[in-house]
């Protein structure tokens, strides 16, 4: 069995407790260092795929598998998946009032250390945080703010990128990280992702996006189109241009009738 970084095999999932089926057999393979873009119209199942990969309790997997480094993650809790190297940048990150970003990051880093290692030294943490803030050109005062509390859309995305930089995942799934961003913020996010890929050339990225515009900043190795809960089409970066020109309709034809 070959070990891909991320392998999704015929994944089927529905809303928990017998809700509607959203993923209807997704196949996708990402190798270390690769960046894939996943595009598709609203409601095609892109965000659901991201949440199912990360283990959101609102969905249940009814078939297929998700493997990270060749090991199935489906029996793992979301925190265990995170500690295995998976990271999900949220489309709508939750607000945690009263908890500073720095405190949250320190707790997250400590959660992935073994008992023998013990908690990260406070000074070592501060240095690491300062390094990452510098790398992403974020003001140090940002880390003292409460997690996403009252943040603008751009600030929330910046916070996601900062967390990704701190946690250094092997596989990052970015759920519409570009939505709701003005051009400057979009540049910050895409530069952040480029910077982090530059730091770790083995890191895989699945970039879920509704728009082509972020692909002007980031060049994916492959582009996939999702329709009705399946990957309907895959290709090189030129696929994004085709979609821009022709929309999604031309891809609809081979699809079976939607259920229900």
């Amino acid at each position: 069995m070959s070990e891909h970084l991320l392998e999704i095999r015929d994944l089927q999932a529905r809303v928990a407790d017998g809700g509607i089926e959203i993923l209807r057999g997704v196949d996708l393979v990402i190798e270390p260092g690769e960046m894939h873009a996943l595009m598709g119209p609203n409601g095609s199942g892109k965000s659901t795929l991201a949440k199912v990969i990360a283990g959101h309790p609102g969905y249940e997997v009814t078939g297929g598998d998700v493997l990270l480094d060749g090991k199935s993650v489906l029996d793992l809790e979301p925190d265990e998946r995170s500690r295995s190297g998976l990271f999900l940048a949220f489309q709508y990150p939750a607000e945690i009032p009263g908890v500073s970003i720095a405190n949250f990051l320190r707790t997250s880093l400590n959660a992935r250390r073994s008992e023998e290692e013990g908690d990260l030294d406070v000074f070592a943490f501060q240095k690491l945080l300062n390094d990452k803030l510098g790398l992403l050109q974020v003001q140090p005062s940002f880390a003292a703010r409460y997690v996403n509390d009252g943040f603008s859309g751009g600030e929330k995305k910046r916070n996601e990128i900062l967390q990704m930089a701190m946690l250094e995942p092997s596989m990052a799934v970015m759920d519409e990280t570009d939505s709701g961003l003005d051009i400057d913020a979009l540049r910050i996010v895409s530069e952040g992702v480029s910077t982090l890929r530059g730091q770790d050339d083995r890191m895989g990225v699945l970039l879920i996006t509704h728009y082509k515009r972020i692909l002007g900043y980031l060049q994916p190795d492959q582009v996939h189109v999702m329709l009705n809960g399946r990957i309907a089409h895959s290709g090189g970066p030129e696929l994004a241009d085709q979609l821009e020109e022709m929309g999604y309709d031309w891809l609809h034809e081979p699809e079976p009738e939607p259920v229900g």
Partner: protein
Amino acid sequence: MPDNETVTDLGLDEYKYDFVTDEKPLFKAEKGLSEELVRQISAHKDEPEWMLEFRLKALETFYSKPMPNWGGDLSTLNLDEIYFYLKPQDHMERSWDDVPENIKQTFERLGIPEAERKILAGVGAQFESEMVYHSLKKEWEEQGIIFESIEDGLRKYPELFREHFATIVPPQDNKYAALNSAVWSGGSFVCIPAGVKVEIPLQAYFRVNAEQMGQFERTLIICEEGSQAHYIEGCTAPVYTTESFHSGVIEIVVKKNARFRYTTIQNWSNNMYNLVTQRAMVHENANMEWVDGNLGSKLTMKYPSCYLVGERAHGEILSIAYAGDGQHQDTGGKVVHAAPNTTSQIVSKSISKGTGRSTYRGLCKVYDGAINSKSNVECDALLLNDTSRTDTYPYIEIDENQSSIGHEASVSKVGEEQLFYLMSRGLSEEQAMTMVVRGFIEPIAKELPLEYAIELNRLIELEMEGSVG
């Protein structure tokens, strides 16, 4: 000699020397309440006649008032089974072995030093806190600050005492204030002289440990004009007593231009009925702040209040309540605007876990003529489980049109999305839950002195263990 027999029965060998030097007749505590008991308490404390009369009258008031038919469930509180007066020696009849295992474990995990644990559990020798208290006391005395037990306050400062005692919370105020007035014992007497600013908080902790805590404590604090102080009472470690009823009265006068903050964090064992009346009379341009944390107990009913009786007086009440399984925290605050340009703020946060229930009960009253008064009430409740419960009873009585009153209430559950978000960063479900709770109380925790904030956070972490099914 019957008295000595009692001591032997109680296994008080280590205290026998204390006892022998005690000149007072030994008082044999009995269950239940009676006029005879009240007379005995007063006699045992060598009180002046007026205090005995005050107590007896308060006892009548207690009998005449009906049980409150609001708030928590008091039907299981059996007053005939309660010791209404225990001398310090009686408190000491336990040994460390009698302290329940879970209390010991909590001390252990809070990292409370051995000596202190025993004091908290009511079994230890108290020399250390006595020493701390006496060295601090010397410093305070140099500034003219009075910080005594309430009994010593009555004995040493009879006029000052009588001038203020029971003027802020009269016995007629409520049934349990009447009960306290009849049988009070223990508590602090504090007076900050005019213009004196006390930098280091006055900590009742040391004084109380030096004498044991009273079930019916009575505290009277007088802040003279222009004075400033911060008083801290209680501690976050669980207070273990074999008694199950605590009913205190705290009276504070904040005179013109004075500023006072009273911080109390209490964590009672979960068999405790805790009914406390805390009130401050706030005069012209003075500032009063209550910072109040309630954890543990079976039922707590406690509504710190500010009577704003002078122009531009300001009152503030910040409170946190944590209702664990089977507990009911019926808490809140009360502000009375009785002068123009007075301002007040109530911020109340409650957390209910398991079958815990927290109730916010608040009163904001603006009298006719208290023009330009402003009050803002914010109460937020956090429910951790589907079985947790919260209620809000905000009473607002406005007799003055030219005033502005704001009330905001929110109830939230720890959301699935919040938990998923935190867990997706590697936090276990329990860590995630704890983080949300700590964030929720942060606005109040940051008002606490650092060591209290740290202890509170650690305590919340302990409380949160096993909160995830």
